[in-house]
Structures are given as structure tokens and as C-alpha cells.
């Protein structure tokens, strides 16, 4: 690992990225995770339970958002703790058959805390879709030593 904790400071930006999401992505995530709740793939079912439409799995958003941290850390195993609250659903429009995204998730990260004794850095993620915070208190603890 090339990151030296002494060279980090609280508030430091670790980067950002945009994640495009389609209905196909949700079907792939359902299959990979085993979460087949129809609110994530069936429009009629989703609206029938009072949702605006098909929404992304919260765990898809959480799992995709942490890739910024994984890539920054250089080793996926360095992420020793990761938590979030799910505050707003991410509706994913049906753009099947077009090259368009059904939703876009914007992720940015900054150092939230440093623990020199433990050799860890906490990365706080800001995760937005349609300018709304969809994850709150999204924090990943990374072991640097």
C-alpha cells in the first residue's frame, strides 16, 4: 500500500465518480446478490406498493459507491468497516433499448477522520442522485498500515 497516513489530512478529497445505472444493472445485481424483491425490477409492483417506480437496491448503491474507496486504498481488503443509512430511494427509469442511463449516482469522498494508532482513515462519502442525498453517514474505515 502506497498511502502514508502522515501525508493525509482531515477534509482531504479522495476523488469522485459518476455511476450510471440501468434496469439491466438492477437485474444483474438482483441475480448476483440473491435479492429478488420485485420493487427493483417490476414497475407495476413498485408503483402498487406506493413507490415512484422501480428503485435501485440500497445495497447496489452502497456497493457501487464504495468502489471509489477501494480503488483509492489499492486493496479491497483494506476496507475494514463500511456503513450507511439509506435515506432516499434511487428511481431508475426504463431506458431499455437505448444507450441512456436510467439514473446517475454521483459519489465523492473526503477524509473524515484519521486514527494514527490504529493506522486507519475514515472516508466519508457523499452520494447523490438527482441532486438528492441517497446515502447518509456513508463512512468507510480503511486500514493503511
Amino acid at each position, binding site marked *: 500500500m502506497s498511502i502514508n497516513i502522515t501525508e493525509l489530512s482531515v477534509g482531504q478529497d479522495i476523488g469522485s465518480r459518476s455511476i450510471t445505472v440501468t434496469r439491466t444493472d438492477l437485474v444483474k445485481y438482483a441475480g448476483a446478490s440473491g435479492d429478488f424483491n420485485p420493487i427493483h425490477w417490476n414497475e407495476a409492483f413498485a408503483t402498487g406498493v406506493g413507490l415512484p417506480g422501480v428503485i435501485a437496491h440500497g445495497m447496489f448503491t452502497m456497493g457501487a459507491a464504495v468502489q471509489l474507496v477501494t480503488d483509492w486504498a489499492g486493496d*479491497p481488503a483494506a476496507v475494514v468497516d463500511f456503513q450507511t443509512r*439509506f435515506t432516499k430511494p434511487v428511481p431508475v427509469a426504463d431506458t431499455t433499448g437505448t444507450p441512456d442511463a436510467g439514473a446517475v449516482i454521483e459519489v465523492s469522498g473526503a477524509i473524515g477522520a484519521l486514527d494514527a494508532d490504529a493506522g486507519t482513515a475514515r472516508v466519508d462519502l457523499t452520494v447523490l442522485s438527482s441532486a438528492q442525498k441517497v446515502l447518509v453517514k456513508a463512512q468507510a474505515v480503511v486500514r493503511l498500515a
Partner: protein
Amino acid sequence: MTINPDLQGRSYPAAEVYDVGREKIREFARAVKATHPAHFDVAAAEALGHSDLVAPPTFAIIVAQRADAQLIEDPDSGIDFSRVVHADQRFTHHRPIIAGDRLVAELHVDGVRAMGGGAMITTRSEIFALASGDATEAAGVREPVATTTSSILVRGEGQ
């Protein structure tokens, strides 16, 4: 249907074993749009000191949600899955999940709180790897791998 308040404090013992396969790690990594080579290429994982492919940080949700299913599908729980909303999630990794791991999860219901006509239910899965080798496996030797906690909101009628 109302949530059974006696769920609090209930535990479900480790049930079926989840065998972590390389292709499942690759499939899950692609599904969360992960591109780190340690998820895909054994040599890249080994170069980082791992014995095999490394699972993405949220991979344990597969095992945790299987454990949760024991509670959700328990007719005694009163939970209607179609009214479940995921409220929060945490993963604490005691060590990374690596291809070849044989995992089991113990489920604990840590909290049940009435909210309007529904309820917020907090569960914790303690995930262990079975030690390899017939003798140690038979002896029930297991290593802590991850602790996951999850809160779900079960919406009441009209919520």
C-alpha cells in the same frame, strides 16, 4: 398483520454453509461495478498478499440476507416482505472474505421498535469461516470473518 414484539433477543443458529466461489466473487464485483483486479485475477490478489480472489466490501450481504430470510420467512415474525424498506447497513470485517471460504452466519434480532403502524427491526449476522480440514470442521472450529448489522423498516398499512 403486526410485528411480533417477542422477536427481540431471538437468535437463529448458523444454518447452511455458503461456499465462496471465484465466479461468484467476479459476478458480484461486476454487479456493483467494481473493477479492482483483486476481485478478478488470482495473481493480482496474490500480489497483495491474499491467498485467492478478494470479495468486494459488501459481498457479505449475500450471506447476511440469507440469514435474515430465516426471520422474514418465519410465519411467527409477522413481517410482510413486500413492505420492507432497508434503513441502514453496516459491515465490520474481521478479515477479508476470500474465494474458498466456507461461511456460516448466526442471526441475532437486536431490536424491534414500533414505528407508526409498522416497525423498525435491527438484526446482526455474525459470519464465521469454517476451518478447513475434516478434523477441525467436525470439531466446529470457526474463525470470525465479519459482523453485519442491518435495520429494516416494515411499513404499516397506509405508510
